[in-house]
């Protein structure tokens, strides 16, 4: 399968993270087949698709929690397919798992400390995370179970950041969070990227993904149905790839120019996620959804 923009990128150097022809099974069920992708330094690569498409499986396999049946995972040119997850983390592949997965009996600061235990040298420290999320310092001794969903997501991201990763894997950040909270969290991505990180993210919220990503791949039932830059994709093509409809007649024609960098209208593309619209773990009452200073 040809990947658009390949020819341009090739001149920019080797990809930081590469997956070649990955096939992954859950027992007898084939979750992914023949997946390939390349993530170059400094970019944001998004993987979209409906529930059960295999997005999280892909991320988990890259992080090392799942062993592929065939295929390879390459990091900075080296084959890491057989490497244990904790070794990948210390090499620089750090994942923020789906559902936050904070350490429930540990406080906020302790969660961050655990993340920093095997950290690589780099710009991110617990202090810097506190600066990024202004509310965290005062609440640093609280047990994470008492935080709202958005706050927990911030702590989970912070825990990954203090390890000073080179590639940050974000698994379904928006799950269970109100849209406004999701936007804020994604808004911080630019600050994170500014420190030299590369991001590979999985998202059910298609509009959000298309807004932040420099390149996108869509999965359906374990296979790649679409890949490209958000600017080149029309809503119809994304929708068709997302749901697996037949190729539309004018599929290739009206790509390009018209949309430029415009956000894809979200109305037709709200992902059919249970709880996608509901905010779980939201702090009730008041308006103090404080995610950053001011």
């Amino acid at each position: 399968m040809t990947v658009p923009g390949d020819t341009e990128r090739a001149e920019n150097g080797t990809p930081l993270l590469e997956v070649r022809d990955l096939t992954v099974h859950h027992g007898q069920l084939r979750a992914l087949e023949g997946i390939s992708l390349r993530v170059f330094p400094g970019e944001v690569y998004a993987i979209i698709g409906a529930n059960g498409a295999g997005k999280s499986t892909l991320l988990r396999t890259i992080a090392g929690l799942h062993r592929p049946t065939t295929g390879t995972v390459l990091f900075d040119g080296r084959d890491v397919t057989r490497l244990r997850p904790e070794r990948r983390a210390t090499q620089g592949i750090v994942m923020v798992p789906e559902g936050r997965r904070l350490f429930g009996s540990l406080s906020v600061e302790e969660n961050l400390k655990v993340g920093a235990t095997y950290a690589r040298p780099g710009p991110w420290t617990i202090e810097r995370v506190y600066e990024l999320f202004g509310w965290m310092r005062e609440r640093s001794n609280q047990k994470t179970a008492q935080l709202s969903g958005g706050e927990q997501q911030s702590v989970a991201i912070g825990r990954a950041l203090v390890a000073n990763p080179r590639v940050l894997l974000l698994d379904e950040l928006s799950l269970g969070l109100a849209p406004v909270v999701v936007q804020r969290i994604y808004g911080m991505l630019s600050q994170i990227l500014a420190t030299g990180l590369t991001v590979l993210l999985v998202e059910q919220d298609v509009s959000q993904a298309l807004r932040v990503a420099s390149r996108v791949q869509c999965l359906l039932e374990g296979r790649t149905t679409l890949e490209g830059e958000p600017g080149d994709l029309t809503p119809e093509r994304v929708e068709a790839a997302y749901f697996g409809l037949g190729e539309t007649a004018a599929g290739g024609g009206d790509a390009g120019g018209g949309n430029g960098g415009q956000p894809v209208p979200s109305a037709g593309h709200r992902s059919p996620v249970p709880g996608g619209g509901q905010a779980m773990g939201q702090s009730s009452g008041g308006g103090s959804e404080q995610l950053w200073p001011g």
Partner: protein
Amino acid sequence: MAWVNAIIQGVLTGGLYALFACGLSLMFGVMKVVNLAHGDLAVVAGYVAIGVITVTHIPVLWSFLIVVPVMALLGYVLQRTIIQSALDRSVLTTLIVTFGLSVVIENGLLQFFTANSRAIGTELALVRDSFKVGSQIQIGYLLVVIFAVAVVVLLGLQYFLSASKYGRLIRAVADDREAAQLAGADYRHVFGIAAALAFGTVALAGISYGMYSQLQPTTGTDTILLFAFAAVVIGGLGSLWGTLLGGVVLGVAQQIGAQINISDEVLAGYIVFLAVLVLRPQGLTSRRTQS
């Protein structure tokens, strides 16, 4: 007055039980392993201490310094090899393997040391003397010391778990093993540390028991294992101080049973244990319910 004496005796014995139990609680809490050989390890430590003392003639208290670290190291190795392999397979396998180890250890001791009971003798007045409170209450020094040691050990463990890097890692791995891996922690190594702590504390308990009472090859399962587990369950999993409470409740129940009928001491403890298992399996201090 006999009752007051009995209750005090029961409370102090609770310290010994807590010392036995904290390792069991740690292994179960962190890696979900019920080490059915736990009691036998205490007995092994006692026998090794006897052997070391017999051969080198060092003072009894020095045997602690030698045996406890060795047992801790043994714990790490056993965890990384056999117990981890069993864990990778299934919970059922860990039960079978630790049960097998228990049987092998006991019969090995039986084979090499015969069924005779042994004790760790010492010249220290500490072991044999007791002091009187008022005119009717008599308390053995050794038991008080053991209780104090238990409290110190529990304090030490509590501090280790809450304030040190590995203590944090142990709690993190216990909460969510995968998330800990993603943070760069090799959980097998962390499990090994927890097992080392468990084996070390149970060795401490075993040698103390050898000074306080007598050791036989079957003491591990006859006496220690079920009492240790009773202390953990009654007190509630997940709380070290709960383990002390559980030990105390067990000890007191046993002494009350003995007051009613001298041969019902152990039975009374078991009945309380069963009652807690049936009515409140999460224990006295836990707020969660066991699903």
